[in-house]
């Protein structure tokens, strides 16, 4: 698939995710997150459907974004011949951590067993960051003092920033063809109807919680390493590599580093899944 096409699909998926998210916000209550999420899932007409559409379009956006970035690394010389192009890459690469955090906070916001644990772990990890830890926590999480108010704010803010970076900054326009939008919408709706967005029942996972799929590797590493190493430094490695890609000279070394990192992460993920 061409680079432009994956970019278009990612934008379409983000648009569907944002629109379904706005719709869910009409019934979601940040003061009673689990009760309102359960009500949306079980009682409110079309609630389960819209949750699924939001869940799967967000997953699709994240995965297609990774694919799009991966494709772009192959054409690096075309994009980043000049300094301006390299700066553009580094700024646009911010969509990756922003998307990851928006996706992660989506799990926290449903506030079931997995969501509660994910929120508490994230808060403790942020507090473990030297010097800026407290400020990062106040800006991005602060669940222990503010409940889910800030998580909800950041969830919406980061989605909007992803949209702004991907359209206004990256392509200077919204490039989503009608066909691509309809294909993406159809794929998301069919997946949403067939597979419900997950939510844990109370007391379902008392002795073992498995976090969001992309967090499982970190969860395993946190069992064996210090929080700052496993939860902050290790996940920052690929994000930093992607952001600095055009500035680094030895491309083969970068691919090897990414391959080693991915292997470690996949093994850690499999170990958590097997628990």
């Amino acid at each position, binding site marked *: 698939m061409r680079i432009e096409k994956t970019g278009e699909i990612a934008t379409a998926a983000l648009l569907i995710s944002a629109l379904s998210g706005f719709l869910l916000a009409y019934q979601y209550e940040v003061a009673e997150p689990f009760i309102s999420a359960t009500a949306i899932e079980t009682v409110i007409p079309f609630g389960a459907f819209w949750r699924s559409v939001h869940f799967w379009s967000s997953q699709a956006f994240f995965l297609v974004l990774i694919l799009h970035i991966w494709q772009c690394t192959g054409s690096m010389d075309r994009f980043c011949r000049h300094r301006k192009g390299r700066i553009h890459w580094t700024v646009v690469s911010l969509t990756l951590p922003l998307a990851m955090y928006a996706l992660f906070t989506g799990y926290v916001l449903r506030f079931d*067993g997995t969501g*509660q*644990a994910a929120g*508490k*772990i994230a*808060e*403790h*990890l942020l507090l473990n960051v030297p010097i800026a830890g*407290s*400020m990062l926590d*106040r*800006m991005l999480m*602060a669940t*222990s*003092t503010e409940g889910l108010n800030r998580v909800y704010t950041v969830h919406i803010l980061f989605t909007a920033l992803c949209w702004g970076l991907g359209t206004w900054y990256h392509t200077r326009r919204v490039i989503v063809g009608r066909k691509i939008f309809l294909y993406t919408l159809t794929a998301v709706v069919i997946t949403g109807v067939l597979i419900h967005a997950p939510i844990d029942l109370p007391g379902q*996972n*008392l*002795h*073992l*919680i498995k*976090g969001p799929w992309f967090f499982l590797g970190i*969860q395993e590493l*946190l*069992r*064996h390493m210090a*929080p700052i190493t496993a*939860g902050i430094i290790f996940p920052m490695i690929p994000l930093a590599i992607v952001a600095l890609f055009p500035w680094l000279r030895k491309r083969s070394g970068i691919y090897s580093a990414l391959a080693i990192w991915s292997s470690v992460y996949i093994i850690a993920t499999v170990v958590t899944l097997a628990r």
Partner: protein
Amino acid sequence: MTRRSLIKKMLMAIAAALCAWPVIGFIMPVRYRPPRKVLIREKLPKGSFLIEPEFVLFASETGPVAVSRTCTHLGCTVSFDETRKQFICPCHQSMFHWNGKYISGPAQKDLPRFEVKTSEDGKGYVVLI
């Protein structure tokens, strides 16, 4: 880099810091919240316990003991295994004795305890969180 461009960049950095100041200043403060009182409206027989969302209250031989359910590793809510009389963290499997003493896992520290008082009518407890 010329002196002019250096001064321009420094001025931009100062302007950015000046813009960030009111934003960070607004976000950082934590509103004061007084300790919360959780009222338990029953007297527990000796040797029994009561599981609450934030703590487990034990009626021990030496008096009531409220052990926090917040794991000292990364803050997950620990579960209480009634048969083994142990706390288990569902996130990274740290384990603690019923009284909060650390046994194993990445937590390394004991679970904290909350202050427990007898309620004013003498028919229950007040736990200060």
